[in-house]
């Protein structure tokens, strides 16, 4: 009898251990996670970042309220991703597979905030976007901004090709252009007007001006370079260089020649017209780039190239970043 009681006690103990292993242990795992979430003191939103072919951001639509602090708990199951929410000042560059990155956001204004991946995670990386809808607080400001300049001016972004009939024989120099001490016409000193001009057109106007008759063609091109870059701050250029490396270099190449690894198999503009060049634009091609006004380039940046693989950056860049980026593109043709 004593033996039986001892056996039952041992079996009950063993059963307790088994129940701990099979029931309490799993419950503890989920309980701990629930406790972590509950004790965080803020609302936690899980975002899983997958390559776009596997679904991209999940969820890719978030609803937040003004003044509410939310902890975004971001993870990736496949490759390294990044996350930027420009409107909320969030920039996370490295979300490694299996690691969890947490970032707190507290929106202070209602509106729609785009977010995007910042790492070239796949050939469709540029599709990896999402939107945060922030409501509450003060009544939402109704957008009264004007249409972008290219629309106001009726520029057809797809009217291609645009090719300059005159191009410089040597790389135009900004500093040499400045050293010439030539008074620039008003259409080149007023940024708003200059943006509507193509550098090649500006060259034609300057060349036709009798006041510049003594200047060589090369010096007129130097003047053009000076006119385009004189108002661009080094800070803006540095910011644009960072954005270019993050968003553009994979297709257009770090040197701007359009030979980046992610752009090798893109259709380019042939999607619109088989006679058009294939692949990403070559920013070092003077005939092509000097015939494009800043407004035209801004339009392409804002809208992207439908069907060419060129993403739109209108929802991710501020106005300042857009103009800085266009100035940066000019540096592929204009030397210091």
């Amino acid at each position: 009898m004593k033996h039986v009681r001892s056996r039952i006690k041992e079996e009950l103990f063993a059963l307790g251990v088994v129940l701990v292993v099979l029931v309490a242990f799993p419950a503890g795992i989920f309980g701990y996670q629930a406790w972590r979430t509950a004790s965080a003191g803020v609302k936690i939103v899980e975002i899983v970042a997958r390559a776009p072919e596997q679904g991209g951001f999940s969820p890719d639509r978030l609803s937040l309220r003004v003044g509410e602090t939310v902890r975004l708990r971001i993870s990736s199951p496949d490759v390294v991703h990044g996350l930027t929410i420009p409107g909320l000042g969030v920039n996370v560059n490295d979300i490694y597979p299996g690691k969890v990155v947490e970032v707190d956001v507290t929106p202070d204004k209602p509106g729609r905030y785009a977010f995007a991946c910042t790492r070239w995670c796949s050939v469709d990386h540029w599709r990896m976007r999402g939107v945060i809808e922030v409501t509450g607080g003060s009544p939402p400001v109704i957008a009264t901004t004007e249409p972008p300049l290219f629309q106001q001016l009726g520029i057809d972004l797809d009217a291609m090709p645009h090719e300059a009939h005159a191009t410089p024989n040597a790389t135009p120099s900004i500093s040499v252009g400045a050293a010439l001490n030539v008074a620039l016409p008003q259409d080149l000193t007023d940024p708003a007007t200059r943006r509507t001009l193509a550098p090649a057109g500006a060259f034609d106007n300057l060349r036709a001006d009798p006041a510049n008759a003594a200047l060589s063609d090369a010096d007129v091109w130097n003047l053009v370079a000076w006119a385009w870059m004189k108002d661009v701050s080094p800070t803006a250029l540095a910011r644009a260089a960072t954005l270019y490396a993050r968003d553009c270099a994979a297709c257009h190449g770090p040197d701007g020649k359009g030979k980046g690894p992610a752009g090798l198999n893109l259709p380019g503009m042939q999607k619109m017209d088989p006679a058009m060049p294939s692949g990403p634009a070559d920013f070092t091609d003077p005939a092509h780039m000097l015939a494009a006004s800043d407004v035209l380039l801004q339009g392409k940046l804002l809208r992207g190239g439908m069907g060419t693989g060129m993403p739109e950056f209108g929802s991710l860049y501020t106005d300042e970043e857009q103009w800085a980026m266009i100035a940066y593109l000019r540096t592929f043709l204009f030397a210091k």
Partner: protein
Amino acid sequence: MRYAISDVPIIKRMLRSRWLQWSLTALTLLFFVLAIIAGLVGTPAGNRNFGIVFVWIVWWALLILLLLPFAGRLWCGVCPIPAPGEWLQRRALVQPRPGGKLYTLGKQWPRALRNIWLQNVGFLGVALFSTVILTTPLATALVLLGFMIVAIGTSLVFERRTFCRYLCPVGGFIGLYSQIAPIELRVKDTAICAGHTEKTCYTGSDEGYGCPWLVFPGGLTNNMSCGLCTECLKTCTRDNIALFVRQPGADLLKTTGHKLDEAYKGLIMLACAFIYSTVLIGPWGVLKETARAVGTPGWFAYAGIFLALNLAILPGLFWLAVRGGQWISQPAQTTMRKLFSDYAATLVPLGLTAWIAFSLSFVLVNFSYAWSVLSDPLGWGWNLLGTVGLKWTPYIPGLIPYLQVPVLLIGLTAAIALALRTARQHGQTPWAAAPVTVFCTAATLGLLGLYLA
């Protein structure tokens, strides 16, 4: 030349205790449960998931590099997969029912399947999808769960540990390579067994259950079918069973009497070691991608080549080698089938060392993932032990080839020695072992080429 370590009083007490094995099994079950949960709900990133890191790196390293060469089937003794089924079958967890009674339909496994052919098929099935299973936590969890469900079902219908003995895909190669281990569970004196009519080691007693592995310990001659559960140590009323330390590979010295299913197991293991070394760690990324792309035309081509290599090409080459030896020195009355099976003993050391060499290459490179996974087993952003930030660090990557070369050469040396011994035991001249020696040497050189290239 062997020594009964279980005669050391403290070791005997531990081995006869019903709690030792049970505690270890409960511990492995805990890890098993964590691996399943991690696979089902944890991060899909394999290198951050406990299920992948601890099953395919830590456990695999433990099994291939330590347990198999030095402790044989010790893992089978504490494996969590058959445990729930066995507990249900016994309706007890630790202490035995009176007389070792089992609660099962008690069906006998079909006679035609009392071999390891199904284990060979199961292993090939897992191996064919291994590029997915080894990297996808969910797949790993489902496979492990599947094993456990089959084990439970088998326990309820069939007698004892039928699953372990005839079905477990892992148990098949563990049994094969356990013949190398320097330990064995055997009777001390067969004469005592012969005079012991009750045979409680097989039928069970109040002290424990009859051999769960369906083996009569008195007739054990090799480690293949002994699960080291130590049940017979508890039930033998004559204290005639012991755990011995012995000469490594002692089971292989008797190079006759081997079976065709075991021979194929050896060939499958060698072929898989070669294929894995080529596909998983070779420089051809396209092979790895193809092996992962299940269902595509490329994958079907891979599957065809995989199965052909395992079931036809490598066995065919080995058959030609054995046939060549037979042609060189015709034994009096030995069939090709018997020669083929017996010469396949050479594949045991060759295959095990091939797997050790292969495992060294990825275990040492990837082991450091274990530290971060310990702190965050599900990839949920935890940091339980403060180690989640430890970066991936390959351990002694430069030395790995210097470990692989001697390991493979030891295996080749043992294989050649066994080939010569097989020739002698079959009454052949030593030259009859030459073709098999060439086969083993070519396999070793092929692996060395892959590892050193």
